[in-house]
């Protein structure tokens, strides 16, 4: 089976600091790859490099769905079906919620008018974003709904690979439940997902495989349960050998 995303020798430095150091890994079609690591281990930078938003890598090859994407422009990568979210909730604050979703649909699918609106409804349904919020200005939504809206815009683009950057950060227990359900549901529909998360129980429960990073390096990759027993991982998290 060929991987959906193949990353080879990915490297990025900021001046003297090597943020991502010669990373190589594959993401298989249909899996949920969890990504963990302490703060500053360059997890989000990895997403940045893959999506080229806002910057690409210095070196390395990325193949997505059989196509080299490391030289492609940022919005092209999104159009190929590699969609990311951001750690901080992001909305187009001057627009209504439904317009937020429509932008995403119109830019990738080319659908317009009623058809695009129907797709927006479907995406909202799937993510659980309340449809009666559609005409509210996005800026007025509470944080949780802004996160939901960002997820909806991502799902609306019908991604092949969804990069979720800490969808559960700053959420309460019941809201984390929503993340869990949504991620599982999307995955069940056939979406491949890469998930960065600090909420470990969530990460453990949904991930098929777990990748642990520290200071720009992969220190473990594999079955979640095994990875958590890996001494290097424990050291990275607790700062001393177990």
């Amino acid at each position, binding site marked *: 089976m060929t991987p959906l995303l193949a990353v080879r020798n990915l490297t990025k430095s900021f001046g003297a600091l090597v943020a991502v150091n010669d990373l190589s890994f594959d993401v298989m079609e249909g899996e949920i790859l969890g990504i963990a690591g302490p703060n500053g281990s360059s997890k989000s930078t990895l997403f940045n490099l893959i999506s080229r938003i806002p910057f690409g890598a210095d070196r390395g090859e990325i193949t997505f769905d059989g196509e080299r994407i490391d030289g492609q422009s940022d919005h092209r990568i999104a159009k190929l079906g590699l969609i990311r979210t*951001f750690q901080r909730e*992001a*909305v187009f604050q001057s627009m209504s919620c*439904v317009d937020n979703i429509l932008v995403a649909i*119109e830019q*990738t699918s080319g659908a317009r008018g009623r058809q695009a*609106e129907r797709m*927006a409804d479907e995406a909202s349904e799937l993510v659980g974003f309340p449809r009666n919020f559609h005409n509210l200005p996005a800026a007025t939504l509470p944080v949780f709904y802004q996160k939901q809206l960002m997820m909806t815009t991502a799902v609306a683009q019908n991604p092949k690979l969804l990069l979720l950057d800490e969808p559960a950060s700053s959420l309460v227990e019941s809201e984390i439940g929503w993340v869990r359900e949504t991620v599982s549901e999307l995955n069940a529909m056939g979406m491949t997902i890469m998930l960065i998360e600090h909420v470990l129980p969530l990460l453990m429960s949904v991930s098929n495989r777990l990748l642990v990073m520290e200071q720009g390096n992969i220190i473990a990759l594999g079955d979640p349960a095994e990875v958590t027993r890996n001494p290097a991982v424990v050291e990275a998290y607790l700062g001393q050998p177990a």
Partner: protein
Amino acid sequence: MKYAPSFQRTNGFWPVVIALCIAAALPFFFTETHIRHILILIFVYAILASNWDLSLGYGGIVNFAHIAFFAIGLYTYGIAAKIIGLDPWLALLLAPVLAIAFAALLAIPVLRLEGIYVILVTIAAAQLLFQLVVSQGDFTGGTSGMVLIPRLEIVGYRLSSDGRIGYYYLSLLLVVFSTVFLYKLERSALGRAIKALRDNKYYAISRGVSEGRIRLLTLCASAIFPGLAGAFYGAYLRIASPDVFGLGFLTITLSILLLGGISTIWGPLIAAVVITAFAEILADYGASRSIIIAAMIIAVVVVYPGGLYAAMQEIWGLGTRLRTNVTAAWRRRFQASLRQEAMGVKDHLVETRHGPVSVCDTGNGDQTIIFVHGNSSCKEVFRRQFDEFAGQYRLVTFDLPGHGVSPNGNPDEDYAVEAYAEIIRNLVDSLDLKTPIVFGWSLGGYAALEYAARGTP
């Protein structure tokens, strides 16, 4: 669910229709060419400013070469119609094409820069264009400009005849087309992409918006009508002179845009009227005129950074609040008996933390039921319950702030479920309702839940 009402069903529809009718009828009231000239100028400024808003307000690209689109339209018309000898109407249509071409050229440096650097590079580009125009004296007439540019005619009828009525309607038509264009564009997929890119660049790109393409399209789209207006201006005044590149022209247009309010289509249109009319009224005051207008601009910008349009909406809102307050007061005063008939008891105002609310209280019975009505409703909705339960319980209901005959509340504080719960709490305290049963309907239900969540004392 998408609810984007068609224009016919928005609040703006009738004002626009009325304004349009007035604009169409004005030449019959003002036959002097002077006033028609001012109106035509207003239209030209309105086109310039409102289209500038497309790049500056919606697109977030501070393009100080916007007036250059107008200048290009002007000179294109002049050179094509006078020197090349093209039919004036064709020259008129050629103007926006060249303006778009310049916009595309301008996009090259603009795409690579951000913020204040965009201002600087566009100022430089406009100045460079100015130098170019002035240096090509053989075609452009150099610093004094080219005169006797062919005028527009329709089968031999000069648009300038009959007190310029032809030019008046042509400019009105341009404003209408330009506004329809902007209105449609703002609501189109392109318009959404433009706004998305401005609101949150990287998020927009991650959703497939191509920054380069959208910025290019924004600039090009904002060049069409200024180019056309420039050609119109040339045909109307019959002169193309380089003073359109000057700081004066730029300042007026920018003042109109910012005074009107950015990211609105209507703001610049309103401000074009205000500023041009103001400048004309003060025309006899020489240097003081400029001082007064500049001071006025500073005052408006300082008090209302959102511009006149925001100010108007605020005033409109104040007016509405005042009107509803007065009606509510009038009803409290004169229609009390009507309501008493429905409810069986007379209502009265009770002071709470969120202002006075109108309360019906049957006043007897050990167990109290408080009824809380829903959104856009009023306490009288519970008249049947009052009929039914009167005698068994003490029944209390009230109008939420801004509903029924309660006075308006403060929009920032009083229209929230938390505030409603506090009102219930205040009522319980002040009317000594002990441990009431709270019945909420719709929005009132949320209020009741919130009240419950706070723990009954």
